[in-house]
């Protein structure tokens, strides 16, 4: 009879390093692919690429256009252009917005924190509240509260994100006047740091809830069915056979096992959530990357649009890293199997 010798700590350490290496590789791959895609898009757009880069303003003068052509090497063969473009990306030169007269990179960095705050909050909100509600529904499966839960989650799931935002504004800002409707902070008022945080929080609440709602419904329903499924498994019977009470069984045995598929799906849905931020930021005039996208679309400001695409993709990869880390934390099988 053999014993599988394990050095638990060492094994997991190796696995973490390997995971980070894998994540980095994925990161680089995504950046390169998106950069290439952006490149293709610029050339696929109807019209002169130089015009496209200048922002299709139509009024760019000939001098600017020829300057752009030289700078971007637009008369050179495609592979050379692509190589130049990729090199620029890797040196963080994301181009220049002629509409806003600023480098794209500085625009992105300025707007990034707001979007991170919004998407991060919405993601955590959806996951945590969804898991809690789903667990409650799952352990009370078949009761009237479960039915109510199902109805509510079906409704939430069917709502367009922007419409929910508008309805919440209508209710809470216009009718009840409890929460501000637009923006990030109340301007023109002096505030202490603590008041400042509360101010941002009150502005953040409606947008974050609107963005989180759909995903909350998804995770809650998934958690519910996962809890029901785990409850039928043999090790739960073993737990009962040891004399455990129901609350302990839920907390110690069901929860950990049931949450795994939800974490996986949350990772897969990260892209959709970040995409939804575009609409929410538009509705709530939230000064983030999404709002920037909207303006850039209206102005046909290509460099900015492409820059935002890249930046949002990076946010998604970060969210994926978070969900992957959570998964590994909960499930030792991933890291320990790798190390064996």
């Amino acid at each position, binding site marked *: 009879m053999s014993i599988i010798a394990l050095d638990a700590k060492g094994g997991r350490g190796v696995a973490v390093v390997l995971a980070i*290496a894998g994540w980095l590789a994925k990161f680089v791959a995504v950046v390169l692919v998106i950069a290439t895609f952006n490149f293709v898009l610029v050339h696929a757009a109807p019209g002169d690429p130089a015009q496209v880069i200048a922002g299709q303003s139509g009024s760019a003068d000939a001098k600017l256009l020829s300057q752009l052509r030289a700078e971007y090497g637009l008369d050179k063969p495609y592979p050379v252009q692509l190589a130049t473009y990729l090199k620029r990306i890797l040196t963080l030169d994301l181009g220049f917005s002629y509409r806003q007269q600023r480098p794209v990179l500085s625009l992105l960095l300025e707007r990034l924190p707001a979007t991170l705050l919004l998407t991060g909050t919405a993601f955590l909100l959806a996951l945590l509240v969804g898991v809690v509600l789903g667990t409650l529904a799952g352990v009370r499966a078949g009761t009237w509260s479960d039915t109510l839960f199902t109805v509510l989650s079906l409704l939430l799931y069917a709502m367009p994100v922007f419409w929910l935002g508008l309805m919440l504004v209508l209710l809470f800002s216009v009718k009840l006047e409890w929460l501000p409707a637009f923006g990030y902070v109340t301007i023109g008022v002096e505030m202490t740091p603590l008041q400042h945080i509360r101010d941002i929080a009150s502005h953040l609440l409606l947008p974050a809830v609107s963005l989180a709602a759909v995903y909350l419904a998804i995770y809650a329903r998934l958690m519910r069915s996962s809890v029901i499924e785990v409850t039928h*498994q043999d090790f739960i*019977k073993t737990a009962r*056979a040891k*004399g455990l009470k129901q609350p302990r069984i839920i907390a110690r045995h069901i929860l950990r096992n049931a949450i795994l598929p939800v974490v996986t799906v949350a990772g897969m849905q990260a892209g959709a959530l970040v995409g939804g931020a575009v609409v929410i930021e538009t509705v709530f005039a939230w000064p983030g990357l999404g709002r920037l996208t909207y303006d850039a679309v209206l102005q046909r400001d290509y460099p900015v649009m492409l820059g935002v695409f890249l930046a949002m993709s990076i946010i998604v990869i970060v969210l994926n890293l978070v969900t992957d880390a959570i998964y590994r934390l909960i499930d030792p*099988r991933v890291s320990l199997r790798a190390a*064996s």
Partner: protein
Amino acid sequence: MSEDLLLSVENLSVALPPGGDRGFAVEEVSLTVRRNEIVCLVGESGSGKSITAHAVLRLLPPNVAVASGAIRFAGADIAAAPEDTMRSLRGGAISMIFQEPLSALNPLARVGDQIAEAILMHARPRTSRAERATRVLELIAAVGLPDPSTLARSYPFQLSGGQRQRIMIAMAMANNPALLLADEPTTALDVTTQKQILTLIRQLQAERGMGVLFITHDFGVVADIADRVVVMRNGRVVEQGTVDEVLRAPKDAYTKALIAAVPGTRPASTASRGITGEPLLSAQGLNKTFVTRQGLFRPPRRVQALRDVALSLRPRETVAVVGESGSGKSTLGRIIMRLIEPDNGTVDFDGVNFLGLRGAQLRAARRKVQIVFQDPFAALDPRQKVGEAIARGPMAYGVPASEAMADAKRLLARVGLKDSAAGRYPHEFSGGQRQRICIARALALKPMVLVADEAVSALDVSVQAHILALLAELREEMNLAMLFITHDLRVAAEIADRIVVMRYGEIVEHGETQSVFRSPRHAYTSALLDAIPGRRLFAGPGAAASANVMIA
């Protein structure tokens, strides 16, 4: 006498939810378990044996409940006791272990913690974490596992099946129970592991004077460990008594049939089947390594399933390939069927280099070797009518549809099913019937070789006996050579002319069935033979005509 009586089930009836095929899972069942004895509860699937045990601890599924009767433990009727009382009994005075150790342990918690939890639930006065940790190590050592401190920190997936089951037993022993309920704890284990676990359970039972209610479907196991036997069928007790009484002189017809159905008890015919001639199938030097990629940065995992394996099969011969899990026997079967390709080696079949065939040539040759799989539920397309499933084979070789269908119906009748079966779907049949359909499907192509990959392992014992008998008849009628893959030496004894024993991808021994049983050459073969449940009670192949000679 009555202080001796631990458990007394009196006229217990357990009702099933309405709308099923029967009203009661268990009907008017009475049995007793005393201190310091092992009672085996035997039956096939649907007998209600497992539900009876679950009812004792009130671990029944949601819609299933005790309808009438009493369950007395140490005098008090616990069938009507409040939930608090039940909880204090569970894992305390009464413990239970289950069949499938991997799914019975929380996959995300260390096994040491899971054992400690059992202690935590019942220890009075309260124990400290350190005290519990010490106790956990003691328990792990007590069930025969070395290096307890490392093991306590492991997760279930890191352990083997036998190790996991020992952990389950350690968990069950944590609070020194008076009564142990064991629901088929060795059914999912390899036969050598099964022997170890049975020895362990007997040892623990003797040390602690426990009463054990041991559920099983295997009369061999009953012969090995039982003091008393209770036989159940369709929810009712049909016979009970001491193990001697029931095994030597069974009174009920069903009990007699069950005992007779244990493979390897029917005296094998010693008359030679006249197998001669050049091998029909000859495999040499087969190697197969399974490589699974583990992402970009980790080296791929390599598992060598077959190592230089050679095999030969003569016309009309039956060769049994015997091994435990991981022996490579199934891989060998799949390579012969060309479902997997080996890394290297040769297979000559019917004078042709079988491995070299491709495309249309391969398809043309496929009809000569057919397979019956282990799981009759997975082996039939749920959306295809049974008759069509059988007829598709000949149709693929040009036989017109109407003729193929007529042949299919004839085959169905031959394997013991009604003509009307052809128009029905697989889910309308039982496991044994589905396996018959699979046999019919395989034989529709009139093959020369039939590969049976654990074809009877998933069936109840009585059904198993019928299928084995059917196969024995058919091989004579159709001049079939058979490659019979199995983990059960008793089955091999019953049906095979030659036996090949495999372990870790290698062949460790091969020879005529009789000589392998009488004088095994390899230590592993001896271990396998030794592990056969009930061997001392039941005869091996070629033994005297009386099947019930007890070699005490």
